[in-house]
């Protein structure tokens, strides 16, 4: 019944995006989501095309601007399952300000960042997560910017669900996606994803040989421990739910929304307007 179909894609053969899309479908199906109640939101980039390739409602907006659209749609209709799929450039570069501030708002949406550590669609410039020293077309002497650590930043900004996964680990990714979608609040999964065309450093093999599942006894509720864990990003890269905490959501805190009648079902009450008019007389 709840089957999510895939439309024709325009990705390069071998791209990590294919498996992310597949895992997303699996996760949604396993969560028994109704495709008609799912809204896919994205910016612009290769990852951002995901919204166009899956049978659900979709909003393919501006580069860097997926989050404001997504949270507002959720505010308008809390019955929608709102999922953002977008790239590292889109989410952390152009969209950096929305990233930080929407964590603070804690609207119940899910954010999947296809983190290929490069700008794919524009053919290979450094993204915020590109490694130091990596040579690109625009950084012929190597990237000199300190790479942004999305996990650390998300925890520091106050996110309540912060996970990392890898496009090449289907089981793990599906599980992360399901947990993130089920989490009540803003949840982010930074998904390591090879870009076969433009990132010759962070390849499938590169990630494959580095990622490891978090230890069994890892305590994802310990913020300081999580921060320490998030700094591991060299020879060994931990994947899993790095940090998780219960936080009041936007909807819970907002008086207008707290009665859980979706905003779009609320009608104008002319008596109230008439009363407001009266206040000026």
């Amino acid at each position, binding site marked *: 019944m709840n089957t999510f179909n895939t439309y024709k894609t325009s990705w390069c053969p071998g791209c990590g995006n294919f498996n992310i899309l597949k895992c997303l479908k699996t996760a949604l199906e396993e969560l028994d989501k109704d495709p008609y109640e799912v809204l896919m939101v994205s910016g612009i980039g290769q990852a951002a095309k995901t919204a166009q390739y899956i049978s659900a409602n979709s909003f393919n907006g501006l580069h860097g601007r997926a989050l404001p659209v997504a949270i507002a749609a959720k505010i308008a209709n809390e019955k929608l399952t709102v999922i953002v799929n977008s790239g590292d450039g889109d989410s952390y570069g152009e969209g950096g300000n929305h990233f930080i501030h929407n964590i603070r708002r804690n609207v119940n949406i899910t954010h999947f960042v296809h983190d290929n550590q490069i700008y794919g669609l524009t053919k290979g410039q450094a993204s915020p997560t590109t490694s130091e020293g990596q040579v690109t077309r625009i950084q012929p002497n190597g990237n000199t910017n300190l790479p942004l650590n999305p996990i650390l930043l998300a925890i520091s900004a106050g996110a309540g669900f912060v996970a990392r996964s890898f496009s090449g680990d289907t089981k793990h990714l599906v599980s992360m996606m399901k947990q993130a979608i089920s989490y009540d609040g803003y949840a982010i999964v930074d998904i390591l994803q090879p870009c076969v065309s433009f990132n010759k450093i962070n390849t499938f093999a590169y990630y494959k040989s580095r990622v490891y599942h978090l230890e069994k006894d890892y305590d994802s509720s310990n913020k300081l421990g999580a921060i320490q864990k998030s700094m591991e990003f060299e020879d060994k890269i931990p994947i899993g739910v790095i940090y998780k905490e219960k936080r009041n959501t936007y909807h819970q805190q907002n008086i207008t929304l707290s009665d859980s009648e979706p905003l*779009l079902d609320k009608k104008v009450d002319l008596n109230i307007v008439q009363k*407001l008019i009266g206040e000026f007389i």
Partner: protein
Amino acid sequence: MYNILIGGEAGQGIDTTSFILEKFFKKSGYYVFTTKDFMSRVRGGHNFSLLRFGNEIITSHSNKVDVIIALNDETIELHSNKLKDNGFILCDSGLNSDGPQIIKFDINKMAKEIGNINVAGSIAVGVILKMFNENLDGLEDIIRASTKEKNIEVNVKAVKAGYGIADSMFLSKNGEFSDWMLISGNKALALGAIAAGVKFYSAYPMSPSTSIMDYIASKSNEAEIVVEQAEDEIAAMNMAIGASFAGVRSMTATSGGGFCLMVEALGLSGVAEIPVVVVDVQRPGPATGLATRTEQSDLKFVISASQGEFPRMVIALRNHTDAFYQTVRAFNLSEKYQIPVIILSDQYLADTSSSVKPYDLSKVSWELPITAPQKEEEYLRYRYTDNYVSPRLIPGKSRNFVTADSHEHDEQGWICEEAKTRVKMVDKRMKKLERLIEEDLQDPEFIGFENCETLIVGWGSTYGAIVEAIKNLNNDGKKKYGALVFGDVYPLPEKLLREKAMVTNNIINVEQNATGQLASLIREKTGIECSQSILRYDGRQISAEEIVSQIFKGGDQ
């Protein structure tokens, strides 16, 4: 008609003073029109209010003043030239200024005795109220509405004290406006949005638009609205679009600098055909410019903002009636045509309070998204239709997928680079504007003699001054004057303009900008040329007197 100027430093309570006076005058039936002139600072500097009131409708401020309440010497220096021959200045005995028209009271001393130097203004209020023969009924309630609980008592005392030391000077009156509203332009706009059913309001604070957000936020609980302060204007606009896509009416407001940051998303609304209402409360630019002053210099900017070509509508607000009804209309046209509608206001209108006939809610209706029934599997968000508008379903509300795409797309909403589709989609979007011109565009308001010899053209908030100027010019009797004041400015309504341009080719544009933006829009669209320009761009609003004198100076009398 009387005109009172209240001047002093920021922080001396000019707002409270004029608020209390306004309320009393309105209560006893006067028509009230109050404008504010203030600097971009919280304390110090020089601010003033101009409070005009009378038994007839007043559409603009005037720089000829009957009474000046001077809270400091600077006020007298700066404004005594505005005083009419029979006018007077009211101030504290401690001020240095002197002259035949100055009346001094021991206001500050009294204030200190009452226990708070900041109630000097309230004492002056008392003096004025007595002079104008007002009774003090309801004093406490009015003060309550304008100050904090703990300050109510001293202020009541202060007004009463002032009342005690003055004599009544003016005849009592019998105005009919006591059951009209007294409202500022921004509040009127905000109220219009609430009546239109706005459910999501996102914005980033920016003068002079912030009081729209203030008002909506203050009513958000009872009116069940979500007001979200965005991290920046980019977010504000994208949020409004996202909420609208998901099915609620949304709006954002800002001034020119913030509008800059919304420009890209304006195009998104255009190409994705998502309704949204954006308010630009203009202030003088470029860049930070003059944050708390007025100008009409964003017209050309907003009509061409964003790359590419897409339909949009721009409505300029002319007065406090427009501010309400045109805001409702903006929401409806935005939905009907699935386009962004930009409301242009300015600091003058935003901060001016005026008496206005209570808004009639029976005139308010709500355009709903078209959701023409069709078979599930056939729903196409961007379907080509005879009237160029495609059914707009709400995601999650039916078993259809609803799409939105910032790329050029096909009927389904998927990226499409095909040449034919591109052309059809551009045409579909642009034709919506042609339809709007036919079905919904409103001609400018015509004022004055049908067969005028000189035609003034203007737009937006100069309406009031133009109306008054035309009246005065025509009373003068030498020549016949008329005026067209545009509310809808883009697309430009041409019909009435072309008709009037047949009657006379002596056309004068009156605008609050340096380049005559309306005049050049008119030239671009119709070839009609203005023969004289009256432009003011020092951040202060033009008055009727000034229009008249400029017209005479231009040789036209």
